């Protein structure tokens, strides 16, 4: 279901029918629409434009007044400088984010399958209680979570973040998979069951092979949100340098009065954004599916 909603957005509307003669009023409207679209385009692009051009002006080559201007000559010195600070945190982030995303996707798939196709008594209540977990402000669990981690000996390890993203990702992952599986006709499962196939067997042979697109959606969703997460990272690592992840390392670099090094700061911000931007560029439609599934109305 959710995929069809996303397809409505992704598929460009067929405009061949509109190609009849527009007339004066029609042309005026079309021009007005383009002006609006281009203005909004400028608004959307402006920040990333500023980030990109200023990353080629060197470490101190950016000043307050010239930041909108295209660099007069390309200077790459800010890139290695920013990368030197970010390399270790970014690799650390990549490793933990991959782990947490994969575990989340597996759990989401199992939960979604059962809730969509093998309802048990109270499964609806369970699902609703899961969903509420999606909306809570994580401040409301943060203090006990830190205590729990310390008591379990996880404190001071990156696994605190794996645990957090897996557990608090259960609601959204379950929701996305449930909506996806709900669109698979019950008759297929019914027929396999009549033939004596078990729940696990049906999952393995019928459901799982159909699930690849949904796995991509969930993996991308979890990857992006864990990569960009700052709240869990700052609370659970306590800002410890040996546990710095992409966002906390970047915040440490750009946040604390280092305003003179605009060049490095903007470059560092760009470097941290590259992984999620790449995912968006190449797998944008899956990203959008995740986004729209998160809006509940399947």
């Amino acid at each position, binding site marked *: 279901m959710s995929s069809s909603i996303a397809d409505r957005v992704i598929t460009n509307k067929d405009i061949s029918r509109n190609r009849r003669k527009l007339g004066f009023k029609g042309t005026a409207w079309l021009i007005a629409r383009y002006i609006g679209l281009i203005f909004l385009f400028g608004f959307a692009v402006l920040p990333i434009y500023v980030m990109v051009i200023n990353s080629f002006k060197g470490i101190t080559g950016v000043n307050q007044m010239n930041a909108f201007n295209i660099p007069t000559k390309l200077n790459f010195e800010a890139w290695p400088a920013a990368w030197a600070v970010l390399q270790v945190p970014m690799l650390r982030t990549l490793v933990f984010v991959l782990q947490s995303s994969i575990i989340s996707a597996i*759990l989401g798939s199992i939960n979604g399958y059962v809730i969509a196709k093998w309802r048990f008594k109270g499964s609806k209540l369970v699902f609703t209680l899961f969903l509420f977990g999606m909306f809570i402000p994580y401040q409301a669990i943060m*203090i006990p979570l830190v205590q729990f981690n310390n008591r379990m000996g996880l404190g001071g390890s990156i696994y605190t973040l794996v645990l957090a993203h897996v557990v608090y990702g259960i609601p959204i992952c379950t929701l996305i998979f449930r909506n996806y599986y709900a669109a698979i006709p019950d008759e297929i499962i019914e027929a396999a069951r009549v033939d004596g196939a078990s729940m696990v067997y049906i999952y393995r042979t019928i459901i799982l092979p159909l699930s690849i697109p949904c796995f991509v959606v969930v993996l991308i969703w979890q990857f992006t949100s864990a990569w960009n997460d700052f709240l869990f990272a700052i609370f659970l690592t306590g800002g410890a340098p040996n546990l710095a992840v992409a966002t906390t390392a970047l915040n440490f670099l750009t*946040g604390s009065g280092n305003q003179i090094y605009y060049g490095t700061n903007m470059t560092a911000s760009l470097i941290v954004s590259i992984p999620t931007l790449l995912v968006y560029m190449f797998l944008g439609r899956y990203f959008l599916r995740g986004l729209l599934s998160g809006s509940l109305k399947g």
Partner: protein
Amino acid sequence: MQKRLKSRVGGFFFVLPSIIAVAIFVYGMIAYTLRISMSNRTSAYITNLGWAGLKNYTGLFHDTDFMHSFGNLLKFTIVFILGALLTGLIMSLLLEKGIKGEGLFRSFYLYPLAISFIAMGTVWRWLMSPNKDKEASGFNLILKSVHLGFLQNDWFTSSTGSMYAMALPAVWQVSGYVMALFLAGFRGIPDEMREAARVDGATEFQIYRQILFPQLSPTFLTVLIILGHISMKVFDLIVGISGKSYVTKVLSVYMWQVTFDATNFAKGSAIAIFLLLLIAIVVIPYLRYVNKSEEMK
């Protein structure tokens, strides 16, 4: 029959790990936060949970910093919701009939959602720089160069308008999301409905007002709920742009400060529970509405 029963129990068994995890980490921990918020753990040195009743909550309402943060959050929420709703709606209205280059516009309206605000904060801090006139940068520079110099202002460092300025990057980030939701809504309405109205002589304006918008009321509700809960939770946007600065402090940032810097766990918990209640008031009725409308299908 027996087989069916067995598989039902089997299904439960497979979801059980997640049920336990959610029960402990969501509901158990909320309950524990609630307990801490009613204790006297006002510093890291107090380790036992003495009973303090509602003292931490009543204390909040006499705490000027808390009231200031709450007021800021409300200001931000109003401007952010209106701004994002309007921008996203306009984006979708411009696109919904289809236009050459639709894919390009759509992709660029949506990309801000993929980027962390800790990263975008650096740029927005510069765009909304309070420097003016000769030293103008960012938006002030743009305003100056289009001869609207009198509009230059302090943006997020302003003592009165900081939260309205803060809503701007937030609108920038989510309006593409709102656009996608509305676009999905518009395109879920069969074209025949418009055609029929057109044949009956309705103007384009009437078609939107009387036919399309009424069909979109569930979308409006969804958008409002999504924007509302994003707004209440706003955190990295604020921290990314202005850190713990007083003029832009909201509940989540204040909670962080109280818990982290002052190690006042009792008070931090009380703020967190207050935030949870604010969101629950909006989200629980919505979840019930979604459940009901699914049953109707």
